């Protein structure tokens, strides 16, 4: 059985206060990813996010290469700021501090 709904399968941009390039790599089924996504929204920071598990195979592989570059474990959520700083997991204090 397959469930169907209209969850986005691309990189989504969320406008907000500019705090550099903020990219969230997430899984649509992951609750910690959801919390991270909600935190970014509540902080009102300009950011993008992508649900890697919803990508077609080839795009998923390419996206995983990007994730592994910053987080060799390839785990989620992976938050990358300005292509330099990487925060793995829902580390709320660290995320707040990095985007303050």
């Amino acid at each position: 059985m397959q469930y169907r709904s209209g969850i986005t399968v691309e990189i989504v941009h969320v406008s907000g206060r500019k705090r550099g390039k903020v990219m969230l790599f997430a899984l649509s089924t992951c609750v910690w990813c959801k919390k991270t996504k909600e935190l970014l929204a509540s902080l009102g920071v300009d950011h993008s996010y992508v649900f890697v598990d919803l990508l077609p195979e080839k795009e998923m592989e390419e996206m995983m290469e990007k994730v592994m570059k910053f987080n060799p474990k390839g785990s989620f959520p992976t938050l990358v700021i300005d292509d330099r700083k990487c925060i793995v997991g829902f580390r709320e204090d660290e995320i707040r501090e990095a985007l303050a």
Partner: protein
Amino acid sequence: MTPAATPTEAEITALHEKLDREAEEAGYHLNPDRTFTRDLVRGLLVNTARYGYQSCPCRLASGNRSKDLDIICPCDYRDPDLIEHGACYCALYVSGPILAGTQKLRPVPERRPSPDQRKAIREVRTTSIGGLAYPVWRCRVCGYLCARKDPPEICPVCKATKERFERFI
């Protein structure tokens, strides 16, 4: 990947109740945060529909069951993470102190080895010591041991399936 999933509230409730009952019977506890836990249960249902097996909602499954046996919930890493962090990786399962509220739930770092490390581990597992009348099989989920020709179809303790067993001795 396949379309995103939306299990019904009734499906989530049914699986949540089943997991809760089985956890308590076996001495484990589900996360008492109802909203959080229902979200995880929704993820389990989505993954079962998507991949054909109940892989961890907080990990990216490969779609190949034999490569993901270690992350089928309950995963191989639940028990060590419960001991070290008071919760499993996704925090579906929590320890007594977390349940009682005497310990705070914090993010659990990923314990699962990288793909290359996992391949090396699989190769090591095939070696064993001989000289016994029967091999000893170990359930990688709960540690149950049994000496018999083959592992049981279903672990009598944690209900993990046969392929979750490894030859221990």
